[in-house]
């Protein structure tokens, strides 16, 4: 009920907010691109039977194909970030739109573009992390041999971080976009970029553990992607988001510990 009330209130107040619609449309396009697999991926040099949604698969493909593979991987990762992160950021994008109210159309477009683009760019850069991890530890191989232990361990990391003070602090920032805006606002396109970089940092601080899970379950695993997107969006947008963050941490802890015990037993294979 609370969710519905919130949604209705938002729709009433903004009388069809253009920025929100555009943001959702962009996120939707990103989802379609990923679901339909429209992004090109180099497919050479990898053992047969490996599917794109398998853990470590896209990273292995990328690393096996040099600079072009890495480039395409980062592009895919950036599209994924838009799909996962834009829905939760609508409140801030809308508020920012308010700050360019008096400006000309050209300037509005430039500033909004800089703001939203920088956000996608910074999140896109985080794609370097899964590549680096795969360079050291081939996740595909590990997942194949000790999948249960790998997922269990990753869930424990999520649990510890979800319940930490750092998570709470970053989430508070993400949950009060107006406070963030009034504190960090600077005029101009450069101000937009600066604001966006700062927000991205808090956003990464808030979500890195949940996003890290993608690395273990498969960075192109659409089902996990959808589930994590819902959790991250609710954490930020609804009034009980902070409690959801705690609950997510507790569930991840219990399931993670369970998987580790299971994976540790010799009969589990």
């Amino acid at each position, binding site marked *: 009920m609370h969710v519905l009330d919130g949604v209705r209130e938002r729709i009433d107040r903004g009388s069809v907010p253009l920025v929100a619609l555009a943001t959702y449309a962009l996120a939707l396009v990103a989802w379609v691109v990923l679901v339909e697999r429209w992004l090109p991926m180099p497919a050479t040099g990898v053992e047969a039977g490996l599917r794109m949604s398998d853990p470590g698969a896209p990273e292995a493909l990328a690393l096996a194909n040099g600079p072009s593979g890495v480039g395409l991987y980062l592009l895919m990762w950036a599209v994924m970030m838009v799909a996962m992160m834009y829905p939760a950021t609508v409140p801030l994008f809308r508020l920012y739109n*308010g700050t360019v109210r*008096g400006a000309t159309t050209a300037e509005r477009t430039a500033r909004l573009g800089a703001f939203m683009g920088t956000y996608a760019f910074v999140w896109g850069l985080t794609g370097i992390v899964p590549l680096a991890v795969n360079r050291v530890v081939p996740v595909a191989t590990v997942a194949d041999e000790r999948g249960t232990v790998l997922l269990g361990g990753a869930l424990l990391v999520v649990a510890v971080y979800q319940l930490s003070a750092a998570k709470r602090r970053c989430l508070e920032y993400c949950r009060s976009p107006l406070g963030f805006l009034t504190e960090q606002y600077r005029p101009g396109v450069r101000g937009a970029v600066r604001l966006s970089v700062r927000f991205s940092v808090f956003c990464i601080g808030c979500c890195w553990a949940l996003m890290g899970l993608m690395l273990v379950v498969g960075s192109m695993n659409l089902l996990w992607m959808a589930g994590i997107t819902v959790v991250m969006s609710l954490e930020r947008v609804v009034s009980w988001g902070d409690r959801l963050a705690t609950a997510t941490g507790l569930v991840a802890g219990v399931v993670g510990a369970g998987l580790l015990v299971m994976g540790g037993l010799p009969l589990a294979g």
Partner: protein
Amino acid sequence: MAGDTQNDWSISGEFVEACNCSAPCQCLWNEAPDDDECTAALFWHIDEGVYEGTDLSDLTVGVLLYDQGLLFEGGWDLVVLVDEGASDAQATALEAIFMGRAGGVMGAVAELVEEVKDTAVVPITYDRENGHLSVAAGEIVAIEADAIDGFEATPGEVSPHPLTVPSMTANTGKSTTATVSFDDEFAWDVSGNNSYFGEFEYGA
């Protein structure tokens, strides 16, 4: 038509607010105000300011605010008070800025406003000396407030504060007088309660 300079504006100076919460007001922690109701008078005294070539220095703008529940969830009712000393061009500029039409941070805050009930032109006086603040807007508003000390007799500060300069702190204060009488909705005596004051700097 120099399109890109049309909406250039910047103002800086000092602000003061006096509300119904016990000092300090809990809206900064995103909590509901005392009695779940927020009645506040806010004033911005512009030391230096310009809007599309119109000089706005030494003018003061006031806002009367009524809200229920969490302040930053919105639904505000406002009355805007514009300095009688402002020329027509200046008054138009001040309204554009403070009603959020000219963008900037005020443009973002405007999302929270449910309705601007009225705008009035009144004589406004603003004085700040040695931690004592004194603001009057005609017969409508009277504020007298003092800085209050925090732990170890050090002047109290809060940061971040949404109205103040980024990276700066606002002073905690307490009103001795904080009365508003405009109409039925905007009439209160919240003397002896919270007052914040500090410096601001806004622009588009």
